């Protein structure tokens, strides 16, 4: 294919001009705020330095926020991905009518997040929630506090599931049904198949999905804000409280915390890109 036919300089300049409006808006609403945050995270009072970061990593309060964020993100991603793996594998094995219906429903619930989700969970799993009462009555649990770390992990897991299914369902394409049959012919049991063929083939996709779920949970703000009115100590809540709260406005400190969050995200995104590159591709 001829990639660069001579099309005249005028055409190319016009084409570049068409990119200008996009560039202006992208810089104004994506790049500029980020640059402001990066620069001001280094501003301490009237001077510049790493003071804000030093404060974060020596403050129990901020470290607790980071720890909570990581714990909730990790466990909700883990539970989410386990349910999504089991679900999407089974989805491929049932008749197409049921599959299409549940897939469509799952895609719809992926938009059920944030404030409405927090409300729904208060209704079913709050102190007087129907499910809480039911579970207490049949003796499975003694009490359940939705507004605690464990409660948030349950809530986050819920919004990780549809995303996990959406991302993992296509990954099972890599696993061809005839391999299973070949393995069975050679004497491999179900466990052997998964241990030596299934899981190794799926590993890159699983890790990639896990990484996206982690990022999804780390940056989540709306759900936890709506649920606890900003009283639960996680990174996004801390950041927002310092720019939009009523008590202690401190945009510089908020910037430093925001950069910590971005740093975590960058590590995660880089890991994802790296996994994507070395992921297993089925030869077509």
């Amino acid at each position: 294919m001829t990639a660069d036919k001579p099309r005249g300089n005028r055409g190319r300049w016009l084409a570049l001009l068409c990119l200008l409006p996009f560039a202006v808006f992208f810089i104004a609403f994506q790049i500029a705020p980020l640059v402001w945050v990066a620069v001001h995270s280094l501003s301490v009072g009237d001077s510049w330095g790493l003071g804000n970061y030093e404060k974060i990593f020596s403050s129990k309060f901020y470290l607790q926020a980071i720890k909570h964020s990581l714990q909730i993100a990790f466990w909700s991603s883990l539970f989410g991905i386990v349910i999504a793996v089991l679900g999407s594998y089974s989805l491929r094995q049932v008749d197409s009518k049921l599959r299409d219906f549940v897939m469509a429903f799952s895609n719809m619930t992926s938009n059920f997040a944030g404030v409405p989700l927090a409300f729904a969970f208060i209704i079913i799993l709050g102190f007087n929630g129907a499910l809480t009462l039911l579970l207490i009555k049949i003796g499975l649990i003694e009490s359940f506090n939705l507004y605690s770390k464990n409660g948030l992990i349950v809530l986050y897991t819920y919004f990780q599931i549809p995303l996990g299914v959406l991302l993992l369902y296509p990954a099972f394409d890599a696993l061809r049904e005839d391999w299973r049959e070949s393995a069975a012919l050679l004497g491999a049991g179900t466990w052997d198949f998964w241990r030596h063929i299934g899981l190794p083939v799926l590993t890159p996709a699983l890790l990639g999905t896990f990484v996206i779920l982690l990022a999804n949970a780390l940056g989540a703000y709306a759900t936890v804000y709506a649920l606890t009115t900003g009283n639960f100590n996680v990174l996004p809540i801390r950041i927002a409280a310092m720019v939009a709260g009523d008590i202690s406005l401190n945009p510089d400190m908020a910037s430093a915390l925001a950069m910590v969050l971005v740093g975590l995200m960058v590590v995660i995104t880089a890991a994802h890109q790296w996994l994507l590159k070395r992921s297993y591709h089925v030869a077509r």
Partner: protein
Amino acid sequence: MSLAENKPAALYHRVVVWLLFLILLLPLAGTLLYSLSTSWSASILPSGLTFKWYVALWSDPRFLAAFAQSLLVCFAALLLSVLLILPLLFVVHYHFPKLDGLMNILILLPFAVPPVVSSVGLLQVYGSGPLAMVGTPWILIGCYFTVALPFMYRAITNNLQAINLRDLMDAAQLLGASTWQAAFLVVLPNLRKGLMVSLFLSFSFLFGEFVFANLLVGTRYETLQVYLNNMKNSSGHFNSALVISYFFFVLIFTWAANRLNKDRP
């Protein structure tokens, strides 16, 4: 096939799929029931059913205003996104295919930088001065463009690759069309489906956006999500009716996107 022979396995997969469905359904079903019940506290099932919460909701002028404002902001943001992203896609894929690599990195930014981080900068940059937009819907429209960008870029790129842009353009030009004519009359109609799907999906996503709306604008131009959050101290039944009405609306849009996606050749 081995599927039919293996009865216990088939049953297992059906059970798993139904369980998945039930888990996903539970919060919605609970909210729906709550929104229809007269009162429901400290018991497993409600005491009676009614539509009064929906009537109360849909006759609340503040709700209707928030609903209309949400729609307005979302539509404006989608229009802006289309106007900015379509030319970009065309130019990148037709004139500078190498830029696609750069774009694929740039569209990661809205993912890697959570809205709460952007908000810190946005509040300061546009809080005062010549570009003071904080507290107005304008800043939301700009932010929502960045939110919709990755979805639209990916969806339309896939569509563009499927239609073989270069051959289509060459064919149109051989038949005497100018670059503009070829782009508008030949390429654009072929992108209609990818565009519609990404618009529906972006809409349902933007309609549920809360972080930017709450931090940058809040009650000064109340959108549906902010209204929902501000109503949290009112009756739970009322809120449930609000959640269900919201979800029903999103459902229509995702369903439409799904349908469009399925008809795809």
